[in-house]
C-alpha cells in the first residue's frame, strides 16, 4: 500500500514540476519539502497538487479520499510539509475510509 501511495505522490509532484517549470521538487525523496511557508511551492500550487492527488487516489483505490486538513497552512504541523508527511496523511485517510 505504501509503495502505491509513494508512486502516486511522486507522479503528482513531478507533474507539478513540469507544469510550473519548477525544479525544486524534481526526483523527490521523503525528506523533500513541499510546503512550509517560505520553502517549497506557493499555496496555490499546493492546492493543485492536493486536488490532483485526491483524484489520483480515488482512481487508484476506488474510494473518496479527502486530504483537507485544518493544519494545512501551519508552519510546523502541516501534513503537507514534506513528501513523507504527505504520504503518511494519505495512508491515514485511506485507512479511515477502508
Amino acid at each position: 500500500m505504501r509503495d502505491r501511495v509513494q508512486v502516486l505522490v511522486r507522479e503528482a509532484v513531478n507533474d507539478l514540476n513540469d507544469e510550473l517549470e519548477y525544479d525544486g521538487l524534481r526526483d523527490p525523496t521523503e525528506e523533500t519539502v513541499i510546503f512550509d511557508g517560505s520553502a517549497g511551492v506557493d499555496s496555490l500550487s499546493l492546492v493543485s497538487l492536493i486536488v490532483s492527488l485526491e483524484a489520483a487516489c480515488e482512481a487508484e483505490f476506488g474510494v473518496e479520499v479527502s486530504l483537507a486538513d485544518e493544519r494545512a497552512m501551519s508552519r510546523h504541523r502541516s501534513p503537507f510539509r514534506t513528501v513523507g508527511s504527505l504520504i503518511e496523511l494519505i495512508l491515514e485517510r485511506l485507512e479511515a475510509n477502508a
Partner: protein
Amino acid sequence: MHDVMFITGTRKGIGRFLVDHYLERGYRVHGCSRGEMEDPPDGYTHHVADVTDGAAMHRALTGTARSEGSLDILVNNAGIASMNHALLTPASTVREVFSTNVFGLVQTSIDAAKIMTQHKWGRIVNFATVATPLRLEGESAYAASKAAVVSYTEILARELATFGITVNAVGPTPVATDLIRGVPAEKLSALLSRQAIPRLGEPADVANVIDFFIADASAFVTGQTVYLGGVV
C-alpha cells in the same frame, strides 16, 4: 465547448425550468434533488441526491464528469425557505435552512471546483434572494443563509480565479413557485412594491442572468451578485 452543466434542485420550481432552458440551448444537463423527477426530459440525467449528503453529491458530480468527460458549470439552485417570526422559528428549522442553503452549497461547490480545476475552466452560479438586501421581516433565517451565500460567493471567486473558475450569484425577486406558496397575498404585494419594477419574477428572468454568468465571454465577471427587479 463548455457544455456540461449540473443543476441542483431540479425536480420542480426554477430548477425544473432551467433543465429545459439549457437542454434547448444544447447543454448536456445533469441535476439532482431529494426526489425522483416526474417525466424527465430526453437528454437530461437525474441523480437522486440531497445536497446535504456529501457522499451522494460526490457520486453525482464525479459520475457526471466521468460520463460526460468534464464538468463545466454548476448551478446551486437547491434551496429551502422558512417564513416565520424569528421568535417563533424553531432552532431545528434554522439548522435545516442553513444545512441546505449554506453547508450543502459549500460542499457541492468544493467538490465541483476540484473537478473544474483539472480543466482550468469553470462556472459556478449560486442563488441569493432579494430578501437579504430588503431585510425582510419574517425571513431572518432564510435571508441570513443567503447572506452567507453571497459572502461565500465573493471569497470563493477570489480563491478560484487562478483556476479559470468564476463564481457569481443571482438574487431573484419572488417567483411563483412552491417556495413562496405560503406567503400571504398582502405581504407579497408589500414586498413587490419595494422593488424598482414591482412585479413577480419569471424563471426566464433568472435564466437570463445565469446565461450571462456562464457565457464564455464572461470570463472577467466574478464575485458578483445580481439582484432582479431593481433591488440593490
